[in-house]
């Protein structure tokens, strides 16, 4: 009973942790503009402060029923409406909410406004209205048409962007890349591929070396357990025998045991890779030659 309860508890904890892992933690506040005088307009041709959210995950994220708020005391201030297909953010993509205090204009219009010249705080809460997913404190000094943005999408420091060299990027990446930096860096710093070769071969060797060492250990433990079992079967105590005294059964002995089992009980070894009397039937397949390669005694090559 205790064992069953223990197992149930483990399953419940595992399920709960899975559910937590699948939450909307990947949602990020990414860029905010408080006073919009010349930046983007909404569907009605009007300018308002805006809040950009970013899905930092590599999978689509549904954000309906999360809460946007500018008041820590009211975490459930603006619930993102259900039933709008546009609330599903594609992987690594953005969505902009206009903070215009006019939620009747549509899904992406909040019921609060950001106040110029004052400190503003914006938070995103999960559907429970308790779990704070992300928050940002926007200083009162943020000028009109300046945005407060993360230096890199979904991560990094918050910095002020004035629209000059530090461009403002509603609904698009905060860092615009025209090349793959990793590849550029490899092309520039490792033009002959020597660095990649050294690194990669070290990793491949390490991975297989760790596996190799692990299975040396497991093999040793297995051998010692099997030796102990055998001693127990022979009724011999550990201190009575020196190491190596319990020898492996010879092939002939194993064959005799299997023959006896087969003849009298019509049974055979479950480990069909070791020894069996029953004919092993194999269905034909393109890959079956691999099995044959492992199991069949190879024929002598007569080509000399």
């Amino acid at each position, binding site marked *: 009973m205790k064992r069953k309860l223990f197992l149930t508890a483990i399953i419940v904890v595992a399920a709960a942790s899975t559910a937590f892992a699948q939450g909307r933690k990947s949602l990020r506040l990414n860029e905010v503009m408080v006073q919009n005088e010349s930046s983007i307009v909404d569907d009605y041709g009007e300018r308002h402060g805006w809040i950009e959210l970013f899905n930092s995950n590599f999978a689509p994220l549904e954000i309906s029923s999360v809460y946007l708020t500018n008041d820590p005391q009211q975490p459930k201030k603006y619930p993102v409406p259900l039933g709008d297909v546009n609330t599903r953010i594609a992987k690594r993509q953005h969505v902009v909410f206009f903070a215009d205090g006019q939620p009747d204009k549509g899904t992406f219009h909040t019921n609060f406004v950001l106040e110029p010249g004052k400190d503003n705080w914006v938070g995103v809460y999960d559907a429970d209205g308790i779990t704070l997913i992300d928050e940002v404190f926007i200083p009162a000094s943020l000028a009109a048409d300046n945005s407060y943005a993360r230096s890199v999408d979904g991560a990094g420091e918050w910095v002020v962007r004035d629209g000059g060299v530090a461009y403002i990027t509603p609904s698009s990446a905060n860092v615009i890349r025209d090349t793959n930096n990793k590849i550029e860096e*490899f092309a520039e710093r490792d033009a002959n591929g020597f660095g990649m070769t050294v690194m990669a071969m070290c990793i491949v060797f390490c*991975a297989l070396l760790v*596996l*190799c060492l692990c299975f040396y250990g*497991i*093999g040793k433990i297995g051998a010692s357990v099997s030796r102990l079992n055998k001693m127990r079967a022979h009724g011999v105590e550990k201190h009575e025998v020196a190491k190596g005294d319990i020898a492996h059964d010879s092939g002939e002995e194993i064959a005799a045991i299997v023959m006896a089992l087969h003849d009298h009980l019509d049974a055979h070894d479950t480990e069909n890779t070791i020894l069996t009397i029953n004919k092993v039937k194999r269905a034909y397949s393109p*890959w079956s030659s691999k099995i044959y390669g492992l199991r069949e005694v190879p024929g002598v090559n007569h080509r000399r």
Partner: protein
Amino acid sequence: MSFGDFLLKNLQQFWELTGFANAEIGNFVMLAVGLFFIWLAIKKNFEPMLLVPIGFGILIGNVPFNTGAGLEIGIYEEGSVLNILYNGVSAGWYPPLIFLGIGAMTDFSALIANPKLMLIGAAAQFGIFGAYMVALAIGFAPDQAGAIAIIGGADGPTAIFLSSKLAPNLMGAIAVSAYSYMALVPVIQPPLMRLFTTKKERLIRMKPARAVSQNEKIIFPIVGMLLTCFVVPSGLPLLGMLFFGNLLRECGVTNRLAKTASNALTDIVTILLGMTVGASTQASQFLTPQTIFIFFLGFMAFIIASSSGVLFVKLFNLILPKDQKINPLIGNAGVSAVPMSARISNNLGLEYDPSNYLLMHAMGPNVAGVIGSAVAAGVLLGFLA
């Protein structure tokens, strides 16, 4: 318009849709390549299970048609049947399914019994990175070089998986090159093995492998997956499925699943993979100077991989005790090409000593090569994607 004109106009439109009206010289070249592959498979028995689907796929992919007619039949036309089937290649989900089957049909006992053979599988991956350096020297970009170099892993699904991520435009040539050289392993490897070994080394007899318990066989895929994927998470699709398949096989309680994975599922995916990879080699995409370079680099990769496996064993023997020496003829098996390269080790060993069976010993590095090439693919993906 008279009835005769009407018929003539429609017949003319029909003619414009036919392959004869749209054929270019490149189509005929590729059709000849497809026929050559089918001939190799049927007459020469070179990897027939792969070369027949690929060869026929090349025929399918190179039947000329009017691409402007909106027939939605081409493999690159979104929504066409071939395009839907091709998704398994372009999105990279056929290779992991093949790996599931490989895992379900592979016996890792030889490797578990003698874990040091894993290092040979690691050494042979030098072929990948040697080819990577040559590809960079020729002028390929690092991501393209990585995708091409994986041919040296001698593992078709891995090559397709990586090229679909790093260089999708080169995938057809890479896949065809990888499978072609895998079919040519019996031609490429023996001269190298003879070149790098002495007669005395070829006669080395290895100790028979110990028996492996079922517990060890069950632990292997679990520990193997966790260890390798913790080191290279980007190899998870391939390594995860490989070890999962092996667990189905070894755990003893999922025989039905293991049988399906190793037979029906693998057969289905092999057919679809081979056919769509073949069909993706349309003349306009395939007949380019890059393809010649890719075939050259694939050849280099195979030579480097086979040689480095053999040379590594010779080096390894310097530090091994006298009674545990490894026959360097099994070094070539470090490239995947399961089980062809292990058979070559065995056959060559028997040529020099008719009672020296190396097959089981060679299967160790052979299956380690599968793991090693998947790890190498994960490394390249991690660095370059």
